[in-house]
């Protein structure tokens, strides 16, 4: 435990819906790769150059699709939101591309708003939370966290711990 009596209130990650788009893209692209393999099978009786070309294209594409997909999944999974009794820490990482850490001290926060917009967000219980630190708008990406599961509960939890200056 740290000496300044900082205590963790909640640790959470963003909602699983963030995986839906990469997964659907992965299924489509993998399907395209298998179509190329089938085309290579059709070309087996034809010229070797065309066969090699299509086979290597399919193989390289399949590898690239898999690396892209797992890179995307791992990057999305490396997102953490840590709420303590003194600050909110938001870690967003993407392998070799992004390394962001945002810390908002609770005594700087005037209020927290939760937004759920659309049928999907309402049904799947996720949304955006916005930190009003005075001078930030609800569209400011530095003051908003997207894909937060149960944003109303999280906003209530943070508001409960806020001790304004």
């Amino acid at each position, binding site marked *: *435990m*740290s000496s300044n009596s*900082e*205590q*963790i209130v909640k*640790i*959470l*990650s963003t909602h699983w819906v963030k995986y839906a788009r990469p997964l659907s893209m992965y299924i489509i692209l993998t399907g395209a790769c298998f179509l190329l*393999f089938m085309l*290579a099978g059709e070309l*087996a*009786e034809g010229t*070797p150059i065309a*066969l*090699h070309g299509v*086979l*290597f294209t399919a*193989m*390289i594409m*399949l*590898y690239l699709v*898999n*690396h892209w997909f*797992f*890179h995307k*999944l*791992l990057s999305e*999974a*490396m*997102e*953490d*939101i*840590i709420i*303590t009794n003194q600050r909110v*820490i938001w*870690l967003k*990482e993407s*392998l*070799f591309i992004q*390394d962001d850490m945002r810390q908002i001290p609770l005594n700087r926060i005037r209020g927290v708003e939760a937004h759920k917009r659309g049928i999907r967000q309402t049904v799947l219980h996720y949304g955006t939370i916005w930190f009003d630190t005075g001078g930030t708008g609800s569209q400011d990406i530095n003051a908003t966290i997207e894909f937060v599961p149960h944003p109303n509960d999280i906003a209530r939890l943070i508001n409960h711990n806020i001790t304004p200056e």
Partner: protein
Amino acid sequence: MVIAAFIAVQIVSLSITLLFIQQYKQISLKHIRLLHSIDDSKYPHCKIHSSVIVWIYTIVMITLTIGMSVLFYSFPNLDL
């Protein structure tokens, strides 16, 4: 020539997998250290998700490497 190109593609692919796993471990360790500086009994949420994804990634890439080798060597009329 064809075999050399095939082996090169396999090696590059496996190297990318190892690089991603290495990077994942570094990021994961960073999150754990940050969290342990506040409370050493807690673990980050990302650790659970990403561990499962890394295991699936490893299994998929090994399966793909073996599968591609079998396909490549058993493909009809492939002039090696």
